[in-house]
Each structure stands twice: as structure tokens, then as C-alpha cells.
């Protein structure tokens, strides 16, 4: 009797021979389905081949490995992997193999899997890289994307110049539609957020100022803080999430669908046709949205002043009028216009540069929102420094 390697019932194998140099591996039982064995089929077969190779080296008894699958009840892809590995190992040990005993199906599948030789080089991007290389690569990536952003900004300015000269070609109806979606349709969310911001600012000021009996200055705090800084910034952040992401997704989908290519080959400039109307609509609507946000924010502060601090309506309004001048409001509006251009450019840029897959479009809108918000905050800081220096 030959040694039996137990795989655990019912899958099992016996070794017959060696007989005239031929070692026969007899497979029986169910090899398909869930593996409940401690030893994998691959390990078991590799063990067989290793033993055969040793016997050959010692006594020259085994020359060839044959298979007998008459009692093999069922099998799945795992047996293919096991046999494939065993055959390769046998080859490296110089053992001959005879596959006649294997089921026709197994032999065919093995043949199919070897029909096309594996690709020589693997993808270079899978190469292992160390930390320094990764840092360097991402630095290159950042500088490249900054370059792209500059180029896109330049192209939008060219497009704007063509518009000014009346040479830009796009659909007038597109502008109206974008105005509708970025203006009136944004009113509810911009309104709610800014009323609440006014309320929050009012409370924050009230707690501190009440200690000095200076609660009337809540009006100053709310009006100045909102018109100069918070209303434009928050409106821009809302619009980056709302409209910037939408633009990136729209243009990204058009890229996937070859619609942008079709514009190009129909003789249109995608910059003029797609980016320009979005940019115009946003920079037209943004200052108006900022004015609206100012008014509602001040209203929020007024609710706190009158409701909590027992100020009278006329007092509050008078104090607000004294606190802010046209300069403050104008500063907020100018900021709004700049932010509008920023949101439009980051949204459109990521959309236009989107790759051609579903995940690429998702990335495009994520990147549009992230870079939109970052550039808004950076620009707010720049404004703060310059207005301080210029004394505005």
C-alpha cells in the first residue's frame, strides 16, 4: 500500500507506483466547493511532485507523473490552479508529465490559460517606491496642476476678451438658464445660512458686550462682520459646493460622452461655448447674492438685538446705518464678484480636465469643491491683508 496524503474527506488522492518509472496520482472525491481542509489542494499536489522529484534524484525510479481522475467526482477552478502549479514544479525538476488521465475539461481549460503568454513587463505604476520618491512625485503633481490652473485661467481670460469683442460664440439661452440656476434657485439656501449666521454673530457679540452694557454694538459687529467678511465668504463656500460641483459634473459627463469633442469638431470653442456662459452667469449673480446675504444676515442680527437684548427697531437700524458705509458693502460685493469667478473657474476647469470614467467625474466634482473652497479662503486672506494695508 502506498502512503496516502489525507486532504480530508471527501476530496482525496492516492499515489500508485512508481511502476516502470511512472508515478500515478489518483484523484478521488469531491474537489469542488468550500475548502474545509487544513491542507490546500495546491499544497498537497506540490508535496506529491516534490516527493517524486526526490525519489527520482535518489533512485531514478520516477521519470514521469501520470494522472488518474476516474474517481474524481467534482472539481472547480481551484483544482486547475493546483494542477497548473504541480505541472510547473514538475517541469522545473525535469519530470515528465502525462495528462491523458485528466478529464477533458481540465485539460482544455489548462490549455486555454496558457494560450496567451503573460505580459512581460508589469505596470510600472505598481513599482514599489520609497517615501522620498512619493513626496517628490506629489510635489511634481502639485506644481503641474498649478500650471494647468494658470493655463486654464489664461484661456478663460482669452475667452472673455473674445466675448468683449463680440467674437465668442455660445447660446444666449444658456446664460439665462445658468443665471436661473445660480441666482434665484440659490436664494433659499443662501438666505437660510446667512440669517442663521447673523443670529450666531449676534449671540456671540451679545454675551460679551452685555458685560459692559454695550449691547447696542451688536449691530456694529453683525453689520461689519457680515458685509465685509462673512457674507461673501460663506456665500462663496455655499456656491462652491452647490454650483462649482454641478459645473464640474456637467462638463465631466460631457467629456465622458464625447460631447466636448463634438463641439470642437463642429467648429466651436468649448471654452467659449461651455465655460464662458457659466463664468458670466456666476460673476453676474454673485454680487447680487452677496447683497441679498448682507440683508438677511443683518436681519438675523436684528432678531437677536430686538428679541434678546431689548433694543428697539429704530435703535438697531440707526446703529447699523452708522456702523457701515458704502465702502464696506462695496468691498463685500467686489469680493463676491472675485469669488464668483473663482468658483466658476475651479468648477469648469476640473470638469473640462475630467477623465473619461464614472469615478473620474466624481473626482472632478470633489476636486472642484475642494480647490474652490481653498482658493476662496486664500483669496479672503489676501483681501484681508490688502484692505488692511490700504486702509479700506
Amino acid at each position, binding site marked *: 500500500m502506498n502512503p496516502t496524503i489525507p486532504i480530508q474527506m471527501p476530496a482525496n488522492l492516492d499515489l500508485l507506483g512508481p511502476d516502470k518509472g511512472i508515478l500515478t496520482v489518483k484523484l478521488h472525491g469531491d474537489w469542488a466547493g468550500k475548502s474545509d481542509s487544513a491542507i490546500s489542494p495546491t499544497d498537497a499536489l506540490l508535496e506529491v511532485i516534490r516527493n517524486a522529484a526526490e525519489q527520482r534524484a535518489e533512485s531514478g525510479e520516477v521519470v514521469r507523473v501520470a494522472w488518474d481522475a476516474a474517481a474524481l467526482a467534482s472539481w472547480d477552478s481551484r483544482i486547475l490552479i493546483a494542477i497548473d502549479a504541480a505541472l510547473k514544479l514538475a517541469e522545473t525538476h525535469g519530470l515528465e508529465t502525462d*495528462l491523458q488521465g485528466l478529464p477533458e475539461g481540465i485539460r482544455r481549460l489548462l*490549455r486555454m490559460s496558457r494560450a496567451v*503568454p503573460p505580459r512581460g513587463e508589469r505596470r510600472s505604476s505598481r513599482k514599489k517606491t520609497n517615501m522620498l520618491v512619493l513626496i517628490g512625485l506629489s510635489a511634481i503633481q502639485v506644481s503641474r496642476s498649478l500650471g494647468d490652473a494658470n493655463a486654464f485661467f489664461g484661456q478663460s481670460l482669452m475667452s472673455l476678451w473674445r466675448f468683449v469683442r463680440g467674437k465668442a460664440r455660445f447660446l444666449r439661452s444658456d446664460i439665462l438658464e445658468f443665471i436661473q440656476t445660480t441666482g434665484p434657485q440659490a436664494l433659499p439656501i443662501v438666505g437660510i445660512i446667512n440669517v442663521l449666521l447673523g443670529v450666531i454673530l449676534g449671540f456671540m457679540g451679545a454675551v460679551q458686550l452685555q458685560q459692559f452694557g454695550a449691547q447696542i454694538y451688536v449691530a456694529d459687529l453683525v453689520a461689519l462682520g457680515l458685509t465685509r467678511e462673512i457674507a461673501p465668504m460663506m456665500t462663496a463656500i455655499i456656491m462652491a459646493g452647490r454650483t462649482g460641483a454641478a459645473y464640474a459634473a456637467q462638463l465631466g459627463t460631457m467629456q465622458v460622452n*464625447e*460631447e466636448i*469633442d*463634438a463641439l470642437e*469638431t*463642429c467648429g*466651436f470653442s468649448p471654452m467659449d461655448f461651455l465655460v464662458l456662459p457659466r463664468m458670466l452667469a456666476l460673476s453676474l449673480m454673485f454680487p447680487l447674492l452677496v447683497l441679498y446675504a448682507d440683508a438677511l444676515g443683518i436681519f438675523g442680527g436684528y432678531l437677536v438685538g430686538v428679541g434678546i437684548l431689548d433694543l428697539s427697531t429704530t435703535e438697531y437700524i440707526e446703529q447699523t446705518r452708522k456702523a457701515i458705509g458704502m465702502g464696506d458693502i462695496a468691498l463685500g460685493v467686489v469680493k463676491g464678484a472675485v469669488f464668483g469667478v473663482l468658483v466658476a473657474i475651479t468648477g469648469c476647469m476640473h470638469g473640462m480636465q475630467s477623465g473619461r470614467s464614472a469615478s473620474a467625474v466624481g473626482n472632478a466634482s470633489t476636486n472642484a469643491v475642494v480647490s474652490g473652497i481653498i482658493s476662496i479662503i486664500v483669496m479672503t486672506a489676501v483681501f484681508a491683508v490688502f484692505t488692511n494695508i490700504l486702509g479700506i
Partner: protein
Amino acid sequence: MTTETIAIAVDHLEMAYGEFVIQRDLNFQIHSGEIFIIMGDSGSGKSTLLRHMIGLQRPAKGEIRYGDISFWGLSQDKRRRFSQRFGVLYQSGALWSSMTLAQNVTLPLKEHTDYTAKEVAELASFKLSLVGLAGFEDYYPSEISGGMRKRAGLARALALDPAILFFDEPSAGLDPISSRRLDELILELRDSLGTTIVVVTHELASIFAIADNAVFVDAEARTQTALGNPRALRDSPPSEKVGEFLTRSVSVDSPKGAAL
């Protein structure tokens, strides 16, 4: 043969993404009124070649000439204006999804002609009826089937009566009957209007049905490995691979598999 003029000449073209060269040394000429097929295995850069010819991707080396004009030597503005002479049918139709079919067809007409609004509308309806979509003027691309989108894309490509039509995988996603109808439409357009037609495809049935000439671009060799009439190429293939491609056969046993 003597009166044939060369509509498009591709001269030592090299296509690359960054440093990765897809195809090099492509040389072929397309005569006026010819139906020319760009064929090749998957990943060989057939569609990329088309993108080079219609101005969407700049060649790494070499040039593409229309008549005696070097296409990529033109400025971007001039190139755009020049591409009015093309009609392009994209793989998925590439209709502008925010516009109705009629608006899709009229946009190039409004842009590049001075026809009256009435004429433009009539032309759009006529082009749609040419591709069997009469009555679908006010549908949006998302409301019709993939095959209909493709035909509407063809109507848009035909809007300006282009001298050269490009088709990117016209039979992809079409059932055999629609695919056959499209082939007949292509032949009809060539015969009635004398349009030069360039088709990227690997559908053997349509290749043999419509082609006058063809170029075979090979993904492994990274250059063209055959040029000529597909039937002649099938009967005396210049290489084993071209022969296999055109007869839809494969050498079953690779040397390594033969041992099994």
C-alpha cells in the same frame, strides 16, 4: 484612376501619450470619394488615429494633409473653421444632451451658414428623416434608444453636407440589421454625394461590404502592417496576423499549450 485626387494624406505620423508611443510611421493616402477603413486589433490606437485626423489630438511627429493643407500647421482658430468640412459620427453619438435632436442638428447650421431660421429648421427635419428619425425633432437624447442616438448623431454629422465623413466604430452597439442599414447608408452617401468616408471599425461584415481601401494598425508592432483593399488583403495577407484578422481565425495551439 487618373482623375482620382488625394483627399487626405497621412505622412510619417507618430502618435503618443506623453512618452508612450502608440503608433509610429503611419503612411497612407485616402482618395476623394473613397470609403477607407481603419482597422486593427483592440488597443491598437484606431480611434486615437481618428482623433488625430479630426483635430482632437496633436501628432507627436509627422503630418496630416487635407489636399495640400497641413492640418496641424494651421492655427487653432483656422483648424476649427477648417473642420466644418468634416462630419464626425462618434462612437456613442455624442449628442449634446441639453438640446433636442432638432437643436443638435441646427446648431452647426446656425453657426456656419447664413440660412434663414425656416430653412435651417427644414434642413434639420430633412437630415433627421434621412436617418429615419422624422418626427423625433423635439426629443431629447436621453429619451431615445442608443441606436437612435447614433443615427441622430449621423444626422448632425451630415448637417453641413461635409466633404469628408468620419465614423468611429459605427456598428458598435447596433443590432445586425441596423448595422447593415448603416452600411447601406454609408454607401449611398458616397455614391450620391461623392463624400469621402473614413471608418474606424473591426466589424468584418461591414469592412467587406463597404471598403475600397483599408489600413491595418497593429497593437504589437505599433505601426501599420497592411494597406490595400481588404478582400485582396484577405486573399493574400501580408502577414499572418492580418490574415487571421480578416478571416476571423486563430492559431489554436500556441507552442506552449501544445504540450497539454
